[in-house]
């Protein structure tokens, strides 16, 4: 096993562990939602589990999986080891220590502030410091991947970088730009305040910094999934990548469009003028464009695969795809759910309409289709493909791996559909008891929360299957030498030389210019207002 493989395995291991704890937390929430009178069911337990689920799924599982995937794909695609292996291990250790600290604070009930941690809700310092260490770890990982790329670039001046690495570098650029916001919130506001060094904190400034980070965060999750859709899926499905150059265009567009959009999470906030909210709304809608292009290219690549498998008619290529392959099934089903999630996202971004869905159950319905399906289901499918190649063992419990994506699909369909409906009926998100003392308005959504709990049970079963397959593979999989990580070839052959989409400096410059355009003035105006700040509260 090479160092890179060992490092990638360690990352994926932490990711899968975090996923397991988070899935268990989700089960408790689902049962609570169904209003079952279980002995340990308390408000304290419910909100603690929401916090743990959000942090461990959205921040820990994703970040560690992406770091592991990034190491594996970069070293395979560039066919060279990491530039600084020790730096890679340092990044892993820092992020793991941070995760341990934050998890301790959450599970011991000292940080029931949810994964958005809006002040003046105040958590234990270990929560803020822990999450900051995760981010710092991810920065060191980013530096290592960039250094590896630059070492490769010195030897290949005019070659186009392999598409997988292009997508990963786009991911890293989105992440580095985004994390400036959360780092500022942590270092200048929350950490000194939680340690008692400062007395008051401005909640609106914190929200602006958080959502400056919080929306590009979703592209940090999504872009590695797109890398798999573009560079791995077509090969596993037996086809070729339909268009290499448009894939690069898509990644370039995400680099520049991901950040100047954060106010669309704050449409209902006071303290931000309408004009700036509208500007961010328009920016947000453009992000639909690269995803529309992705839908075409990936589906066209799948059609190529279906035709190479013998399809001749207009639609029979769909049936010819290997729907029983765990990776292919995961990605296809995650794309179906994501299509619905994308339409929901357009509604969320639509300024006026947002008031019907803001902070209702609709929102959790929405992001379980996007990060909970497009990203998480793709990552699980990727793990079925990647982990055997990392540990040199064949996939174990294959039947469970084949069934698992379908269980996730049906569970998520039930969970998400009911949450969209109850959200439109006005049910708020993240409530321990949605009964509201028998208020008539609450009656209409009571039946559907039970259905969403059934969805939750299916999802938990699916998650358990995934964990069993992972454990079985690592512990008992048959040893194999078939460990090559290989990528899909473009239909037109690999690009002859680097194009404008490979000029990362250019895209970073445009991205920073757009961030300044979207944030410099409203942030400056905000800082010039007379602001008072809040002392902390621990109502948990």
């Amino acid at each position: 096993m090479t160092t890179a493989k060992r490092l990638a395995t360690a990352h994926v291991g932490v990711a899968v562990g975090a996923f397991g704890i988070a899935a268990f937390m989700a089960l408790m929430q689902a049962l609570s939602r169904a209003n079952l009178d279980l002995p340990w069911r308390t408000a304290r337990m419910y909100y603690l589990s929401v916090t743990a689920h959000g942090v461990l799924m959205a921040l820990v599982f994703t970040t560690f999986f992406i770091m592991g995937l990034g190491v594996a794909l970069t070293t395979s695609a560039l066919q060279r080891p990491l530039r600084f292996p020790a730096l890679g291990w340092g990044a892993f250790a820092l992020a793991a220590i941070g995760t341990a600290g934050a998890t301790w604070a959450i599970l011991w009930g000292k940080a029931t502030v949810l994964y958005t941690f809006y002040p003046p809700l105040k958590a234990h310092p270990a929560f803020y410091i822990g999450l900051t260490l995760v981010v710092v770890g991810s920065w060191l990982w980013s530096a290592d991947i960039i250094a590896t790329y630059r070492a490769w670039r010195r030897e290949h001046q005019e070659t186009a970088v392999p598409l997988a690495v292009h997508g990963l570098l786009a991911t890293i650029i989105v992440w580095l730009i985004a994390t400036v916001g959360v780092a500022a919130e942590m270092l200048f506001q929350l950490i000194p305040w939680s340690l008692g060094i400062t007395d008051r904190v401005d909640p609106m400034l914190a929200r602006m910094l958080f959502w400056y980070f919080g929306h590009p965060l979703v592209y940090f999750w999504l872009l590695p999934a797109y890398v798999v859709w573009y560079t791995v899926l077509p090969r596993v499905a037996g086809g070729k990548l339909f268009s290499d150059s448009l894939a690069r265009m898509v990644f370039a567009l995400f680099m520049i469009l991901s950040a100047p959009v954060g106010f669309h999470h704050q449409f209902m906030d006071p303290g931000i003028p309408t004009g700036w909210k509208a500007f961010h709304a328009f920016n947000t809608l453009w992000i639909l464009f690269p995803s529309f292009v992705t839908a075409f290219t990936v589906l066209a690549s799948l059609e190529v695969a279906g035709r190479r498998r013998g399809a001749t008619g207009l639609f029979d290529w769909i049936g010819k795809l290997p729907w029983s392959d765990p990776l292919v099934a995961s990605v296809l089903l995650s794309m179906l759910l994501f299509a619905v999630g994308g339409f929901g996202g357009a509604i969320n971004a639509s300024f006026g309409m947002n008031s019907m869905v803001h902070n209702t159950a609709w929102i959790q319905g929405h992001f379980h289709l996007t990060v909970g399906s497009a990203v998480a289901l793709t990552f699980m499918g990727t793990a079925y493909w990647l982990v055997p190649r990392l540990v040199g063992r064949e996939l174990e419990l294959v039947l469970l791996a084949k069934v698992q994506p379908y269980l996730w699909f049906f569970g998520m369909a039930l969970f998400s559909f009911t949450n969209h409906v109850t959200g439109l009926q006005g049910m708020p998100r993240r409530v321990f008891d949605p009964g509201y003392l028998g208020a008539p308005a609450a009656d209409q959504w009571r039946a559907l929360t039970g259905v969403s709990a059934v969805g939750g049970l299916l999802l938990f079963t699916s998650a358990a299957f995934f964990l069993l397959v992972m454990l079985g593979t690592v512990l008992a999989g048959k040893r194999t030498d078939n460990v090559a990580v290989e990528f899909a070839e473009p239909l037109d052959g690999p690009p002859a030389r680097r194009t404008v989409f490979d000029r990362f400096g250019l895209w970073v410059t445009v991205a920073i210019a757009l961030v300044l355009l979207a944030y410099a003035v409203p942030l400056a105006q905000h800082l010039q207002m007379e602001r008072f700040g809040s002392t902390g509260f621990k109502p948990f």
Partner: protein
Amino acid sequence: MHVNPYERFWMWAAAAIIVLFFGTIGVGLLGQGIRPPSHVETIDPQAVWSDARFAERGVATNPDGSVTVTGITLMFAFQPAEIRVPAGRRVTFRLTSADVTHGFQIVGTNANVMVVPGYVSQFTIVFAEPGEYLIVCNEYCGLGHHAMMGKLIVEAAP
């Protein structure tokens, strides 16, 4: 750059869809004046109960017949908990928080605003249908979040 003609067509179609979305927002924003609550006004969150703007809470009728509702959100209640307003009139809500961030959502309407400590949230709405409406907090504010509720009674205009 070589682009397949179908994909070229699709990209134009996608751009057209997005421009159409722009249009719907633009019509709502400019034509119908639909905009999210975006009032900019600050207040000392430690002193909301004595601040002149929030010392008297409840419903006040303005000379032009419109109504102003002044309220404070706190863990885990709305103050006042019951609000009576006339149907068909312009109702302006002015809200602020005494502690953490809360949500103020009137179920079955599009009244939905964040109430952030240190800031005053304000929006204007007309309730067409008389009836009793549930008010809920839709931002997690602590262990009693789900118990934070209020009542809006819209009375038929005399």
